[in-house]
């Protein structure tokens, strides 16, 4: 990846993180850690130009689909969509408020650019399987990207979906596992150990690509390689830091479902802005 593109993506990711902090502080409830952990991946998906997306035509037939199966991390999705121009940024301040298009978990009927309503964990990958089957029936070249969590992977339905995607050789389905190692009650290894997770996906018949969720070169290489693989589904296992970018939130289980106070927001944003300057 060239320097200009990388700098642009870093800026977008920084802006997304700043917006996440702003909107969560304003909302007073919501999920900080899991939104920040996947922010670089979202910056890549929406701003790399590698996906077929059109904010002016959010229901474009041949668009690539993006499903945030770990729907509680929707601040990252809303921030990316607003930054991309799907809707006016002023909406971000209405997150979780009565009458807002930005519900506590994503609603495809309310938010332009949201391809699937999610929130109850484990269901988005199955919806992605259905979309991939439908797109293939139509002879479409579009891909379906589904972002799942490692805590979410404790749901049995994830593995039902995994089995079916491999069975139907869904080469147009790309999973991204936000492996941040934390869930509400603690570290995933302590609550319900899912390791060795890569072996599990391989055993279920998926191609696995392991990357850092915070390295744009690796994200790009993984997405491009995954798109080249046509004979079956690919899981990009993205090692991430929950709360990434805000030092006092990083790797802290307590920041799963907690929002910053105005002081914490200011501290977070100044740290994010400083990182952008350097």
């Amino acid at each position, binding site marked *: 990846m060239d320097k200009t593109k990388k700098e642009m993506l870093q800026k977008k990711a920084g802006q997304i993180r700043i917006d996440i902090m702003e909107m969560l502080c304003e909302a007073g409830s919501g999920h900080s850690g899991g939104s920040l952990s996947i922010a670089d991946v979202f910056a890549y998906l929406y701003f790399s130009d590698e996906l077929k997306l059109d904010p002016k035509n959010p229901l474009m037939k041949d668009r690539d*689909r993006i499903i945030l199966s770990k729907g509680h991390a929707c601040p990252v999705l809303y921030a990316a969509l607003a930054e991309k121009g799907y809707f006016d940024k002023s909406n971000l301040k209405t997150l979780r408020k009565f009458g807002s298009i930005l519900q506590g978990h994503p*609603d*495809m*009927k309310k938010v332009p650019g949201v*391809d*699937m*309503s*999610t*929130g*109850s964990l*484990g*269901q*988005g990958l*199955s*919806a*992605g*399987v*259905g*979309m*991939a*089957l*439908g*797109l293939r*029936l*139509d002879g479409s070249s579009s891909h379906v990207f589904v972002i799942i969590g490692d805590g979410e992977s404790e749901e*049995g*339905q994830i593995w*039902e*979906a995994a*089995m*079916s995607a491999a*069975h*139907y050789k869904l080469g147009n389905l790309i999973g991204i596992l936000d492996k941040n190692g934390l869930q509400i009650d603690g570290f995933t290894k302590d609550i319900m150990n899912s390791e060795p997770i890569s072996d599990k996906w391989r055993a279920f018949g998926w191609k696995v690509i392991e990357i850092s969720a915070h390295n744009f070169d690796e994200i790009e290489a993984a997405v491009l390689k995954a798109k080249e693989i046509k004979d079956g589904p690919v899981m990009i296992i993205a090692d991430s830091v929950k709360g990434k970018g805000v030092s006092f939130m990083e790797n802290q289980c307590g920041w799963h479902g907690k929002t910053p106070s105005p002081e914490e927001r200011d501290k977070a944003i100044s740290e994010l802005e400083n990182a952008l300057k350097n």
Partner: protein
Amino acid sequence: MITDAAKKVLSQESKKIATRTAYGETITALGEVNENIVALDCDLSKSTMTALFAKKFPERFFNFGIAEANMMSAAAGLATIGKIPFASTFAVFATKRVADQISSSIAYPHINVKICATHSGISVGEDGATHQAIEDVAIMRAIPGIIVLSPCDAKETEKVIKAVADYNGPCYVRLTRSNIPVIFNDDYKFEIGKGNRIMEGTKATLISTGFMTHIAFEAAKKLEGQGIEIDFINMPSIKPLDEELVVESAKKTKLVVTVEDHNIIGGLGSAVCELLSDKFPVRVIRMGVQDKFGASGETYELIKAYGFDEESIIKTVKSVV
């Protein structure tokens, strides 16, 4: 007395067909004219009869194996691409096991998925309680935005399936296992939200749905033979209920008996009570499974043992008119 309108649409033949068979045949016929129709199943295609569709359109049939949750959410995904998914399995698995998938992935976004569940009620028979859905209508009725339909014979099933294929939104269609008499002929018209009065009288209103209609119809005819003329209503549309028809009949007879192969909590009887308690309170007797689990046995033996066979219906109506 059989109504003039009913006379025109009642079948003169004495055929017996299971509603699940009519379902499989109808989606196959629809598949011929609409290439967006797809069928999904969970390893029960030979029982739900989606196998008929699978044979004709293998590329548009998806077997998800024994994994109902995945099937329901995948059906939602297929529908977002413009497909019209008919997702089938036994009613116990199509509702109780996947209530959240239906609620979150299908109903909340109001996605165009048709859940067509077979083997509902204790009329399933020998498989016993674990395979007899007696709560499915209650669960589906309680989820906002889902149409709940329960056809009574093969012809009504055909019309119901065509109607749900034309309707844009989530539907639950309750089908049954056993071969039952075909009540209607091809002139019968079905509309979502409409029931039909087959017989008319003033002594009581008897409302039945699904598997129970052929039994209730016989009971109504025998009651007439004994000089007790009642309104007999077949109610395929449980949600939305045909409120106009039920209220109008209740105003006339002031006594309602409902009968369904389902728990008396949450099904047709409850829907009628909820309506009438608001619009025209009259006595309503709910016949069906009296809040207990089913059991193994032969279909009609079970219906009798659980107290809603033809004789029990006659006895119940006679005891209150």
